[in-house]
């Protein structure tokens, strides 16, 4: 079981072993291996266990450790699943590009960074993995080396490194006040400080703010979102998919891990609700006016992130369940949509809504899959978005904020409006002569999309599956003491 935790390290090593022919399959093998290991861990973590692996055998809090709890597992599962599918998708999509060795290396690095953030039990390591993830994604955004992608990448680089330095500063403050870097240890020591002094010291509040801003930048929370649409638009579609479905989710996971574990729900809640609300509303209205499909999806991703933060900020069991479930669902359908747009770009070479039209006849499967994603995003039954949005609405009412549920419902109508608008503009309407010879996307691109679409339907028809996947994560967030106890026996 402990071998599972070496996965991120294996991934890091993978970049040394690029053989030109074998690298596609090697990348696939690594991601599939990661996925299998995570699934293997899933059985025991879902059973309520927390797996702890001590690097070098040093006991925490001094030694560095990896710990897989419900939250880490959920994020890890999403990341590994989506990375695998994206690698398969990339085989054909990226075939014409040069420098694929770097591409797969960076992709594996990105995956490694994400897995590391999900699993680490040490806050400095979290920062390190976070930087790995960030730097590899900067490079991937700039992969095409066109003007637009360089610009997007530089914007992302500047804003992103600002974010990571905020995180580093926050870590420094925490280390200064507690003298430890282990997450579990910090949490228990801070709790002691809070109870002895009777109030929260200013330094923790500053640290918390730094963390929220730092991770907020990463997940594209408004008002720290400016980089996101540019970067998503500039990146190759598989990378947009992995960023929307993986990186953003990891950001949320890390934000939750740090804020809920270390600072506790009552302090973070109102902040998350407020930011989530703004993010949700503005993101949706920005999406409504976009003229580029990828930008539209980027803004809609921002808006959905708002739902997640809002719901988790409620701090109730139901709210956290809804938020985490929505996080899972959002990862699935948002990467699905990016892959579908990628398929369109692959065949038509544009993602501008004005130029597209009437593609439904030529690419019926892509159209159907896009539709599944769009309806899931809009929260229509029988797709997965419905179950999680329903939970979020219910959580809002349950927690005594029916007005939040009301706003969320209105935004849901806006979501439906912009997704349907996009669907109609791209797939319906008259065909333009330019698209006379457009064919359906190749099979190896359709396969990952179909898998994701199937997940949308399965989680929608059997929401119990989703609920049981997020249950352990929700328990961990509400009750960090079991995690602390597991990592540092006797604390």
């Amino acid at each position: 079981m402990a071998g599972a935790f070496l996965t991120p390290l294996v991934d890091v090593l993978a970049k040394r072993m690029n053989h030109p022919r074998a690298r596609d399959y090697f990348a696939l093998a690594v991601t599939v291996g990661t996925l299998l290991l995570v699934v293997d861990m899933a059985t025991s973590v879902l059973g309520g266990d927390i797996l702890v692996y001590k690097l070098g055998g040093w006991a925490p809090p001094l030694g560095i450790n990896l710990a897989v709890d419900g939250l880490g597992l959920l994020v890890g599962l999403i990341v590994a699943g989506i990375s695998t599918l994206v690698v398969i998708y990339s085989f054909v999509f990226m075939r014409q590009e040069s420098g694929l060795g770097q591409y797969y290396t960076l992709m594996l690095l990105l995956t490694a960074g994400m897995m590391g953030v999900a699993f680490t039990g040490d806050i400095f390591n979290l920062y390190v993995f976070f930087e790995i993830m960030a730097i590899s994604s900067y490079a991937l955004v700039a992969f095409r080396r066109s003007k637009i992608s360089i610009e997007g990448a530089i914007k992302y680089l500047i804003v992103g490194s600002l974010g990571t330095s905020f995180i580093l500063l926050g870590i420094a403050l925490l280390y200064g006040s507690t003298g430890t870097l282990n997450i579990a240890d910090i949490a228990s020591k801070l709790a002691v400080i809070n109870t002895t002094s009777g109030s929260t010291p200013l330094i923790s509040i500053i640290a918390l703010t730094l963390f929220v801003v730092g991770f907020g930048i990463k997940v594209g929370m408004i008002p720290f979102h400016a980089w996101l649409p540019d970067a998503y638009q500039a990146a190759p579609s598989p990378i947009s998919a992995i960023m929307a479905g993986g990186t953003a989710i990891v950001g949320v996971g890390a934000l939750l891990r740090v804020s809920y574990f270390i600072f506790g729900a009552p302090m973070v809640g109102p902040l998350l609700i407020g930011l989530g609300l703004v993010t949700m509303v503005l993101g949706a209205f920005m999406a409504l006016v976009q003229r580029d499909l990828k930008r539209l999806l980027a803004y809609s991703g921002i808006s959905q992130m708002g739902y997640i933060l809002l719901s988790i900020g409620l701090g109730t069991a139901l709210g956290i369940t809804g938020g985490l479930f929505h996080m899972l669902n959002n990862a699935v359908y948002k990467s699905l949509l990016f892959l579908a747009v990628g398929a369109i770009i692959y065949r038509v070479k544009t993602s501008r809504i004005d130029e597209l039209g009437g593609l439904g006849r030529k690419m019926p499967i892509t159209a159907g899959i896009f539709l599944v994603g769009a309806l899931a995003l809009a929260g229509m039954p029988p797709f997965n978005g419905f179950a999680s949005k329903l939970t979020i609405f219910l959580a809002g009412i349950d927690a005594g904020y029916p007005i939040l549920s009301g706003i969320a419902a209105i935004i849901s109508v806006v979501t439906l409006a912009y997704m349907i608008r996009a669907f109609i503009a791209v797939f319906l309407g008259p065909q333009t002569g330019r698209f006379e010879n457009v064919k359906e996307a190749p099979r190896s691109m359709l396969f990952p999309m179909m898998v994701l679409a199937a997940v949308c339907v399965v989680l929608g028809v059997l929401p119990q599956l989703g609920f049981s996947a997020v249950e352990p994560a929700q328990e961990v967030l509400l009750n960090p003491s079991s995690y602390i106890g597991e990592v540092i026996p006797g604390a």
Partner: protein
Amino acid sequence: MITQLSFPILLISVLMPLLLSISFPFLGRRLKPKKLAIVSFILLLVPLVTITSIFMTPTLRGGAVDPPFFSHPFAGSFSMLLDPLSAPFAFGIGLVTALVALYSASYMKHRIEEMEHEGLTPPSIGTYFMLYTMFSAAMMGLVLSTNLIEFYIFLELALLPSFFLIIWYGYGNRIRTAIMYLLWTHIGGLLFLLGVLAFGSSTGTFDILNMQTLTFNVGLGANLPIVVMLMITIGLLIKMAVFGVHIWLPYAHAEAPTPVSALLSPALIGISGYALIRISYILFTTQFQEISTILLGLALLTMIYGGLMALAQDDFKRLLAYSSISQMGYILLGISTLTINGVTGGMLHFMTHAIGKSVLFMVAGSLIVQFRGLRSIGKMGGLASKVPITATLTLIGFLFLVGIPPTLGLWSKLYIIVGTLDKAMAMGTIALVLISICLVVGAGMTAAYSFFTLKRIFLGRTPRALAGESVRGWSNLTAVIALVAIVGVALFLYPAVFIDPLKDFLGPLLPSTP
């Protein structure tokens, strides 16, 4: 008394068409439209036969419920219930959807040819039948739901296919119309959902029917703020298109492909009337009584407004759409009286309207097919000599709406009017006079738009443009329409089948009338 069945036969009868409909696009490559229509008809016959046979079994007449097929701690248990309240709805929907499926084949063949002639490429007829069958089955599931969440899911499941039916096969500016339809009804649905969630989170259950005791959760929401009830009710009223929130309906129903109009117009919006009793009234008994007077006023307004607008229309389908608004006014009127007679009449009127309006829409459709897209009444005239059977069927259809024997309309209108007068008398002399005037005006207007339209289309002189038109044989179209009409006439002779159980069911629920 509700009996629990040992086998989920209702569920299976709804899910079978719902799931098997996915195969239509593939079947569509092999089979001709007519064969597809027959497959769809047989699939939709399954729920119709099931509910008819259950309802005809004397021991099950008080209500039959499936064992729950889905249970969740906070969502409650989902099941399917056929009882005297849902029976007229289930029967009406089953009948109309099954027969309109047969009608669809020739109509849609014509429509798709027409669209291809315009240079468009609509999805194949197999896709049409998939959406059609899904839509029909979802409506059936809607009526049989026993849980609020389940109800909402079916609501959206009915909305989506109908949206695509309009956007792909509709007339005019169909994309704009479809989006308008989708957003309006989705807003109504979400308002309903929020109310439902507020209800569920404070009472701890989403069940309408308690599956342990097999009794309804009557008045369970009595202690909730009235806002919750209002959200649910307004959500339903938007879907019902009563006056004030009716704007989407004339567009959607007039521009939808005609067989779909025949379902949308009478069936889907009428279900909201059912939900007003099943959900708003049963769960929020006292609050609903408080607003019933407002609903009464709204109903009269809707009735008269719909009638007036119908009189002013030139497009036959648009006229029928406005007439639907007016008839929704009648259904709401019956409900808002909260008297046994009124509610019975309202529920029965759903069936009347479903049969009558689907006959009329199908007639409008066959005129469109026979006279190459002719919809404008001003360009018609003297058609009785050309299409005598169609003319007769139109007459019967309008008789349903006006409430003249030999149609079921007589009974439903009679009950609604008796119920309204009961209520009006309890409200005082002035109310009685006002309401009576409104009733007379409303009834007069229905008669006026019905018979004027009839005269303008079928009597008088034939316009020169149509005089030379040769009419192709559409016997299979008229046969289907006739079959629907015959069932309606048969129900005129035996209305007690539905009325008596309904009265027994409503008696203990409604406040005792003075």
